[in-house]
């Protein structure tokens, strides 16, 4: 595949980088990334991955755009209120970069659709807002052997880690099972600074890009935490849990399953 003049110009700042170059840009154009959740994390990640020329981007979300989303979900605009988030996201992504393909999956992920959803994608980005979904994505990616980026944000804090099969712990190694519904606050209940989604979602996009071009060190075996009030990033080493229920030596989870969802989280 030869680059057109327009592509050379569009991606020139990538191509200039020795770590990317024409070869890396081709990898990006051939890559397929699935973003689950077109919210605070998924919005900035989708914008940067679309702009970067990731050739196929899937976006999964069942929600419609709400006025309260616009404080942080920068892929949606005021006229989009009421529109399906996946459609609003697709329109913005294609306006930035018309040469990519955006697959819309207007659904919440669940045990009965996740394996089919992630199939065919090279890298998964977890931008969901609840623990049942985060554990489901982890289990499905471990079982399917797919790399993924996990992240969470709340108030002035955020964190992320990257799972690559065979290269370190999964999310369940660190957190064995979801806390009971409503035991740990979510950003819907506790609030979040909009720019936090920008910081952490952009870092997730960065992990996806590095994975695709095969350069640099990923957050495998590390949790990167960000405290905006202290303006402090910390990289915490994470061991693997030999007894992990999904990626351990004797796994008991052999297929994805659904956890009960907190009632207050079912909307938005």
């Amino acid at each position, binding site marked *: 595949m030869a680059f057109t003049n327009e592509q050379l110009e569009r991606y020139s700042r990538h191509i200039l980088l020795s770590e990317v170059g024409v070869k890396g840009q081709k990898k990006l154009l051939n890559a397929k990334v699935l973003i689950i959740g077109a919210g*605070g994390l998924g919005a900035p990640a989708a914008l940067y991955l679309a702009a970067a020329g990731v050739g196929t981007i899937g976006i999964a979300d069942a929600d419609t755009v709400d006025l309260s989303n616009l404080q942080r979900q920068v892929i949606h605009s005021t006229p989009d209120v009421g529109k399906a988030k996946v459609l609003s996201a697709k329109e913005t992504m294609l306006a930035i970069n018309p040469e990519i393909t955006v697959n819309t999956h207007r659904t919440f992920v669940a045990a009965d659709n996740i394996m089919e959803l992630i199939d065919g994608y090279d890298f998964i980005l977890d931008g969901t807002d609840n623990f049942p979904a*985060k554990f489901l994505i982890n289990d499905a990616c471990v079982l399917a052997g797919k790399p993924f980026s996990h992240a969470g*944000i709340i108030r002035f804090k955020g964190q992320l880690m990257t799972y690559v099969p065979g290269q370190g712990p999964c999310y369940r190694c*660190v957190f064995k099972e979801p806390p009971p519904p409503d035991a*740990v606050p979510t*950003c819907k209940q506790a609030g979040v600074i909009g720019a936090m989604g920008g910081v952490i979602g952009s870092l997730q996009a960065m992990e996806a890009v590095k994975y695709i071009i095969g350069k640099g060190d990923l957050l495998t075996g590390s*949790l990167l935490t960000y405290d905006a009030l202290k303006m402090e990033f910390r990289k915490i080493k994470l*061991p693997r849990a030999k007894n992990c229920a999904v990626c351990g030596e004797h796994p008991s989870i052999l297929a994805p399953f659904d956890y009960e969802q907190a009632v207050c989280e079912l909307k*938005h």
Partner: protein
Amino acid sequence: MKITVAGAQKDFPGGLTVAQLIELENVETPEYVTVSLNDEFVENGAFTSTVLNDGDSVEFLYFMGGGC
């Protein structure tokens, strides 16, 4: 004895357990925190029986569910 908690070195009395450290450090949602001691996870059930030693490094890992 000196223990590094979340990257900061602090002084603690000898014989301190992980459970006591969780209390002293006012850990948020202590029932759901994951603890790593010298880069190894401590099982929740072992918080009260795990005694810390001089020079240990402890990290608290918290659930963060938001993404919305």
